[in-house]
């Protein structure tokens, strides 16, 4: 690397422009001891590839990248650039014009810029009173305009993302900052350059790269304007202590943003109504007919306050953290999510919303949790009902919440299914916007309603509403994220598990077989699905799978052994069966049996639709008989009561052949290969 050398690198597709730009370079003064060379790149595939080609062609430490329509007029340009770099080794990039705060829409010219250049906007005014404000000395910026900038170090250019002619300058600026360098714009008493881009740019492909930049560089886009308004609807019921804390927290946020705060009080009798009446900065509605259903609570509140669009809905037991609104706004802007439901991370919900606090020493780590390599968000079939954002006009599109469903869970499940039917996305950001710790008291106490559950079943013609992925099974799909595996789930229901696999392995081909037509229709919005009875026809017979999944399904089949034998024919070499199977021998069943009870239920271990019942040993026998040689079984254990532990000890004394895990495992996760 020659430290006394500066190279001008110009990408060009117009000889006329280039020739004139080169003419002006001839008028620049070259400091003593300095060597200067010029490279023109005429056949570049993109601006960044042209820049890279220029870099590789020279051993100059200092490189100035120019547009072909940029004319450098300042005679001491070279000396000034070198002296700025020499003044601070942390300066990696110098621009003529830049911005200290990137606008939220990523369009640099919409923001406040500093620096100077001759451009058409300066017409009719003296150059010294040029539109951009001039600060003294060096101005640190986050991005510079690409018409002319200089660098002192070579860092990797993001040719993988910016393969055109737009946003390469913004990307390069951000990359220098990410690499720990300063990016600066010097004070120019008169502009050092004239940029003759014909008054405006050609913008045909600009938007494509704008979106890429917004997704890749979320952290660089500016703060929310203090004129931005957020609408928050809190719902509460006899939770005055939590309500006060929640409102207090939101008030802290309102110092930075305009927040319209609304409270729906579902007939509280703990003084909530009186407290609300004393608050001047919020609006509230009190349902004086007593506790109403969740759907009615939302519908009437939305109508009363006119919250049909863009509203955050919280239960008061969720405490919105500082910075949440910033993050939410950034997410909405960068994801370009015009309409949809946005959920938040929690340790009280499964699927991709779930973050296990045990992984972290400090809860704040979970609050900044991010799957950095998985895009901006996961698509989900449902999110935690306690806090979600109704983005855009989906309330108008989907309609009112179904008031025949009293329970919160049923109301939201119904709403999610209606959203899916209408292709309204339900998403959870990969980066935590807000983290709700259920141990803080965030569990919802909205009453269960058996009638609502039955109404929901009747309405949709479905027995199960598996909106949550089976994470225990998904964790067994241990593959690199770029691997193009084939996965089939038998009895995929609404495809929650397959969707979660797709979230993790975007190149995976996922297929579902579902006997219930309604569930298959919902699943079809996410995966390739056949409404098929596995007992009659094996679906997708022309495909060989890496995984065939049975999530709590084998026990429902009339001949699970036969089904497993058939599945073997459709597995790839090394392919495996993944199954979750309830354990009949669980201590809760044994205890009831000892009392003389073996009562079937709607769900759970003794689901009345179970045709076969399994213990650990029976599972092993079945898979062996089906021809699987490698059988790995994990037990799923939930905490059990002390008296159950004692009962297990007693049972083990009576029959030592059995093992403790056979009693305390609620379910077994099986991974079987031939």
């Amino acid at each position: 690397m020659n430290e006394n050398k500066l190279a001008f690198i110009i990408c060009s597709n117009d000889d006329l422009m280039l020739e004139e730009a080169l003419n002006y370079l001839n008028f620049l003064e070259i400091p003593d001891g300095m060597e200067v060379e010029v490279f023109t790149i005429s056949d570049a595939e993109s601006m960044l590839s042209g820049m890279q080609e220029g870099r590789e062609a020279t051993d100059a430490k200092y490189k100035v990248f120019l547009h072909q329509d940029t004319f450098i007029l300042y005679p001491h340009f070279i000396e000034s650039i070198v002296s700025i770099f020499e003044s601070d080794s942390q300066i990696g990039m110098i621009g003529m014009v830049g911005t200290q705060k990137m606008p939220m829409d990523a369009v640099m010219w919409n923001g406040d810029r500093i620096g100077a250049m001759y451009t058409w906007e300066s017409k009719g005014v003296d150059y010294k009173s040029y539109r951009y404000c001039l600060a003294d000395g060096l101005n640190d910026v986050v991005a510079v305009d690409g018409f002319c900038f200089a660098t002192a170090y070579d860092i990797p250019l993001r040719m993988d993302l910016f393969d055109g002619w737009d946003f390469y300058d913004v990307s390069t600026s951000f990359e220098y900052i990410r690499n720990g360098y300063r990016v600066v714009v010097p004070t120019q008493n008169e502009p050092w350059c004239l940029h003759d881009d014909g008054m405006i740019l050609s913008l045909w492909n600009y938007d494509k790269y704008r979106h890429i930049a917004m997704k890749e560089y979320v952290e660089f886009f500016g703060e929310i304007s203090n004129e931005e308004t957020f609408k928050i609807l809190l719902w509460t019921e006899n939770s005055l202590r939590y309500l006060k804390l929640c409102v207090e927290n939101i008030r802290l946020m309102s110092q930075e943003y305009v927040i319209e705060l609304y409270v729906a009080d579902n007939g509280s009798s703990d003084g909530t109504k009186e407290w609300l009446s004393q608050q001047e900065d919020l609006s509230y509605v009190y349902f004086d007919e007593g506790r109403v259903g969740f759907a009615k609570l939302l519908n009437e509140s939305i109508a009363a306050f006119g919250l049909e669009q863009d509203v955050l809905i919280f239960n008061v037991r969720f405490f919105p953290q500082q910075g949440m609104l910033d993050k939410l706004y950034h997410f909405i802007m960068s994801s370009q999510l015009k309409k949809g439901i946005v959920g938040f991370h929690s340790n009280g919900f499964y699927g991709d919303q779930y973050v296990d606090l045990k992984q972290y020493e400090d809860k704040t780590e979970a609050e900044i949790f991010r799957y950095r390599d998985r895009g901006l968000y996961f698509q989900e079939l449902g999110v935690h009902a306690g806090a979600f954002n109704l983005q855009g006009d989906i309330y108008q599109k989907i309609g009112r919440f179904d008031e025949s469903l009293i329970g919160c869970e049923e109301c939201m499940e119904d709403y999610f299914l209606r959203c899916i039917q209408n292709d309204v996305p339900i998403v959870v950001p990969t980066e935590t916007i807000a983290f709700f710790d259920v141990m803080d008291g965030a569990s919802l106490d909205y009453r269960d309603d058996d009638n609502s559950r039955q109404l929901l079943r009747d309405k949709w013609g479905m027995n199960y509403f598996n909106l949550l992925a089976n994470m225990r099974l998904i964790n067994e799909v241990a593959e690199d994220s770029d691997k193009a595996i084939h996965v089939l789930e038998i009895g995929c229901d609404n495809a929650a598990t397959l969707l979660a696999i797709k979230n993790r392995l975007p190149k995976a081909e996922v297929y579902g077989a579902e006997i219930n037509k309604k569930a298959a229709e919902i699943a079809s919005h996410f995966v390739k699905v056949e409404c098929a009875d596995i007992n009659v026809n094996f679906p997708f017979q022309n495909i060989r799978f890496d995984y065939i999944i049975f999530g709590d399904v084998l026990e429902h089949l009339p001949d699970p052994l036969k089904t497993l034998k058939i599945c073997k024919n459709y597995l790839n070499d090394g392919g495996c069966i993944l199954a979750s199977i309830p354990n009949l021998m669980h201590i809760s069943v044994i205890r009831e049996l000892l009392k003389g009870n073996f009562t079937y239920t709607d769900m759970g271990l003794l689901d009345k639709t179970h045709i076969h019942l399994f213990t650990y040993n029976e599972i092993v026998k079945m898979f062996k008989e089906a021809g699987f040689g490698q059988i790995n079984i994990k037990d799923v254990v939930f905490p059990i009561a002390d008296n159950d532990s004692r009962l297990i000890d007693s049972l083990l004394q009576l029959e030592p052949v059995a093992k403790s895990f056979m009693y305390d495992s609620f379910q077994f996760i099986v991974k079987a290969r031939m």
Partner: protein
Amino acid sequence: METDGTLKKSMQDFFDAIVASKGLIMPLKEKMLNAMDLFLKMQSKENLVSVKAILDDAEETGLYELDAEMVRYRRIFDILMSEAKKGYILFSDSLCNHTELMERYILCIFALRRIEFDKEEKFTEEGIQMLKNCHISETAIHKICETEIFAKTEKIYAVLAERGIL
């Protein structure tokens, strides 16, 4: 003053409109350039000037301004129409196609800029000679100086007057 939020939404609408309009603008541009080539080859002044109607069609969308070249063609047509109205020799005189026409326009800008910044006598003189050689009209000089990037127009006019071009 728009807030960031409304700004963001309006920018998306703006870019959505660009994408939607590309299919309209590009064929219009091609049609315009083909017509220009035909009439320049024929040296048909009246027909050449009439091509501006195609540009006007694009102008109705307001989005043709997103193509820098289209904007410059509009300026060229403004010059041609003004010259035609005054009975001057057209800026397009003796040129055979739209590429040559645009090249002449750009060279005139360069020449005027050389006069404005006056970096070196020889360099400036080349610019003056270029303007003389192409018999640029007073109308064209004023239109270019008014619409392109020039600030010291009085200086340019003074030099051109001194050299007998204006």
